[in-house]
């Protein structure tokens, strides 16, 4: 480890650090966080991030609901979550301090913009006294900096109005933090130079702010300690930064290429799914057609129409939209057409908390339609994994001519991590059920006897003219059929087709001992917290393993066998026990549900606490936010 010779301060080596930037939603905290993330990524740390933005686009300036946060955890080891509690909190105003302080670790470093702690802002945040002066922050290392004033001075002589000068103070704070962690400025400088190439004054302002913050930290002795988080040992290769929604969209484009079928993506704007539409809309050069539909039903129906005509029909939404789409999903099921439905889950029910994460649409995806309506359900576990699971969604939809629901969530959608860029050449092509006519008697309802999937008969194919619809139809001919025996047969066939998809589902893997006292079973975006908690429990000598399910209907074929090897099964979920219901019903396993429904992801210590409780090492478990 080299120590910067100019530095008067100590450089302490740490395995991991967690930093949270918090400010008004107009303060550019997401940008600041992203830039700090990139610098660390380029430096070689493993990392994970979590933005936490307010529901309001622009809540009143300085107000508590207007606080926007961005947390990053970076490490010289493997890392799976953005960290339970920040070691460093940057609070750009009193409201940001108020809403975030309780998460800061005891003795943590607290950097505030002292200039913003003026009476009007203190009042908005509900502080009777200035917390910087009343001793209430004694438990932390308070670094009070006149960020706004210092930044103003750095920008002197630039032709900028007051608002524009104020806007660059996030880069002052960023420069300070980069110094704190002994990081170079050049990654940020390169980005800014590119970003503001057409606006030299703004570029100059941002560069000056960044360097001023950095120099301030260097020359004052306000901060006594610097930290060094060495690069992690990660697999060699080319990396990029990616969040779940980007990875989902890119996975769909890749699937389109692997299937050699163009995408038609129709979607109605809804948080947190809209970014998938934004991303896909940029890729017309890959033949991607996108449509912003008039409503959720139109979006799914247009996707179905495009599938009927031979495109890859995909629609994306969140929980409320999935509810609106349910009738149409059944239409795709009945007409045996491929369809991918993305549900980027958020906290429900009803409008719920749109910007907060939850995994509470599992039972809706499974059962939220009229009639016996089996669909294939898959769920990515990490932001990067969204890429390959999106490809899987398309693969299954085309292989089984049936709707596939892809359950991501707000945490995966907006959270990001370094991602080893996969080589597309390593992915097998995706096949489908389109066939040229061979024999005279060929019909649109010719079925593969093994999978029970029908031919994808496309308009334009001569002699395959046929009618499809939502009315029950004959197993053999596809014509309308109300006979009791036929409906029984078709219902079972639809169930069998989906159940049979298990043949293409990889065996479930287990992290940890092959057998033991406890299996922690999870799905979706809780992967990082569960994996980290179970790894810690194992270090603590507990007999615990974890398994994370990516395929929720059907389940992997070996799941039942796995259950038999553990004395107990614990299922942490960001809902009130939905996977538990399915596991209990299907396997008759007395699984222990462990639900967190706060709109926030699991903390590692919460799952660890519950594991200890289940194994009898602690008397009780409660979340911090639960009343005693």
């Amino acid at each position, binding site marked *: 480890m080299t120590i910067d010779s100019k530095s008067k301060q100590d450089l302490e080596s740490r395995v991991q650090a967690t930093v949270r930037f918090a400010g008004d939603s107009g303060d550019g905290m997401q940008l600041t966080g992203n830039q700090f993330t990139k610098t660390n990524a380029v430096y070689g740390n493993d990392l994970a991030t979590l933005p936490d933005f307010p529901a309001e686009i622009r809540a009143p300036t300085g107000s508590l609901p207007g606080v926007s946060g961005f947390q990053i955890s970076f490490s010289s080891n493997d890392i799976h979550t953005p960290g339970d509690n920040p070691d460093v909190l940057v609070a750009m105003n009193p409201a940001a301090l108020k809403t975030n302080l309780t998460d800061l670790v005891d003795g943590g470093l607290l950097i505030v913009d002292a200039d913003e702690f003026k009476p009007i802002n203190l009042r908005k945040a509900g502080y009777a006294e200035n917390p910087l002066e009343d001793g209430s922050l004694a438990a932390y290392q308070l670094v009070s900096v006149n960020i706004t004033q210092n930044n103003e001075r750095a920008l002197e002589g630039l032709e900028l109005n007051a608002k524009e000068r104020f806007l660059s103070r996030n880069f002052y704070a960023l420069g300070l933090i980069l110094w704190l962690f002994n990081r170079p400025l050049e990654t940020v400088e390169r980005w800014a130079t590119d970003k503001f190439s057409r606006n030299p004054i703004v570029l100059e302002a941002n560069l000056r702010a960044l360097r001023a913050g950095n120099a301030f930290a260097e020359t004052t002795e306000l901060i006594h300690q610097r930290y060094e988080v060495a690069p992690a040992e990660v697999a060699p290769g080319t990396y990029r930064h990616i969040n779940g929604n980007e990875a989902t969209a890119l996975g769909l484009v890749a699937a389109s290429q692997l299937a050699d079928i163009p995408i038609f993506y129709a979607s109605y704007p809804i948080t947190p799914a809209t970014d998938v539409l934004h991303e896909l809309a940029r890729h017309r050069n890959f033949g991607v057609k996108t449509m912003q539909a008039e409503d959720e039903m139109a979006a799914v129906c247009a996707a179905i129409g495009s599938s009927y005509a031979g495109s890859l029909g995909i629609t994306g939404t969140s929980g409320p939209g999935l509810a609106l789409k349910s009738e149409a999903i059944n239409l795709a099921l009945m007409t045996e057409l491929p369809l991918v439905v993305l549900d980027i889950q958020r906290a429900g029910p009803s409008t719920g908390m749109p910007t907060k994460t939850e995994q509470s649409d599992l039972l809706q995806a499974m059962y939220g339609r009229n009639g016996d309506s089996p669909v294939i359900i898959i769920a990515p576990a990490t932001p990067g994994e969204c890429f390959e699971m999106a490809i899987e969604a398309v693969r299954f939809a085309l292989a089984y001519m049936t709707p596939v629901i892809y359950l991501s969530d707000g945490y995966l959608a907006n959270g990001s991590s370094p991602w080893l860029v996969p080589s597309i050449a390593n992915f097998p092509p995706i096949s489908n059920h389109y066939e040229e006519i061979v024999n005279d008697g060929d019909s649109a309802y010719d079925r593969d006897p093994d999978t029970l999937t029908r031919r994808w008969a496309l308009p*334009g194919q001569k002699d395959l003219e046929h009618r499809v*619809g939502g009315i029950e139809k004959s197993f053999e001919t596809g014509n309308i059929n109300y006979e009791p025996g036929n409906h029984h047969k078709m219902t079972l066939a639809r169930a069998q087709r989906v159940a049979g998809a298990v043949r293409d589902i990889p065996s479930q893997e287990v992290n940890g001992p092959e057998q033991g006292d406890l299996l922690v079973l999870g799905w979706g975006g809780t992967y990082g917290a569960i994996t980290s908690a179970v790894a810690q429990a194992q270090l603590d000598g507990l007999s615990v393993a974890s398994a994370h399910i990516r395929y929720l209907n059907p389940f992997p074929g070996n799941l039942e066998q796995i259950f038999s090897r553990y004395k107990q099964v614990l299922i942490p979920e960001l809902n009130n026990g939905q996977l538990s219901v399915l596991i209990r019903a299907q396997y008759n396993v007395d699984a222990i549900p462990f639900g967190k429904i706060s709109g926030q992801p699991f903390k590692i210590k919460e799952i660890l606490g519950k594991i200890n409780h289940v194994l009898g090492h602690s008397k009780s478990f409660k979340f911090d936010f639960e009343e005693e």
Partner: protein
Amino acid sequence: MANNIIKNNTADVLPSEDIPLLTRKDFVSDQEVRWCPGCGDYSILAQMQKMLPALRIPRENIVFVSGIGCSSRFPYYVESYGFHSIHGRAPAIATGVKAARPDLSVFVVTGDGDGLSIGGNHLLHILRRNLDVTIILFNNRIYGLTKGQYSPTSDIGKTTKSAPLGTIESPLDPVKLALAAGASFVARSVDRDTTHLESILYEAAKHKGTSFVEVYQNCNIFNDGAFAAFAEKDVSPEKMVYLEHGKPVRFGRQKEHGLRLSGFKPEVLENVSDDSELLVHDIYQESTALASILSTMDYPEYPVPVGIFRQVERETYEDQLDMQVVQARANQSADLQDLIAGQETWVVG
């Protein structure tokens, strides 16, 4: 591969002499027609099947999409590709079909409940987007399949099982709605006049852009005679006016009556011989003002207008979408590996 059929079909398979001449029978499917005897739907089906060969489009390139309701059974009876979807959503499904495959000729068959009530939003938006789809809205001013409830086009005061004291809802006029949505082709016909209906269906199918045709259709079970006062053959010359482009608007058994504009109000001139006093119909006006004024004419104050109200050229949604793809491909490479790698990468090891 499925992609071949998608990619090889460029927009608009033009009518070609090479395509074997089809007949009405070629468009009759093997499915038993299950409308009530005497239903106006039979006439619309027959005129459609008579008209389709004239388009000189291969049968396999034609797709009929419908929603739910009596009218929506239509696709089963036409020997082509057909999609009997869910209630109200036919315009949205058709949008997906046409946007994905501009080479296909797409028809939507809907009704006053399907198209204006549960699916009103989708109808509005397909008209606004202007996909090259032909929409036939069967207006019988009643819910037939669910056995006789009032619809969004039922006359105010109509008594039905769901409104035993009479409806208190003002009806929608489909033509006015289509004009307001900026539809590029708006027409009306009536099941009783087979010749007129067939010609309007033909013009609608030929029009490039969303064509909207309202057909007054008699439900002889639940709303018999809803249009009899003006649509039956014995009264229609006096009570309906056939709009024709470029011609003075005239009606009557000898075309002896005419119509002129008095400000924004249509005015009937009885026994008028001089054409110069009369309003000359112009379907190609960009402004919807004239068509809108004509659409306000209704029984019994006025003769009921049928024919084409408006027909203008507008770029279609699917052509513009395809053009964006073409232009994007011309301007940007499409290397998937580059796309996945993104703008900023770093190398480890």
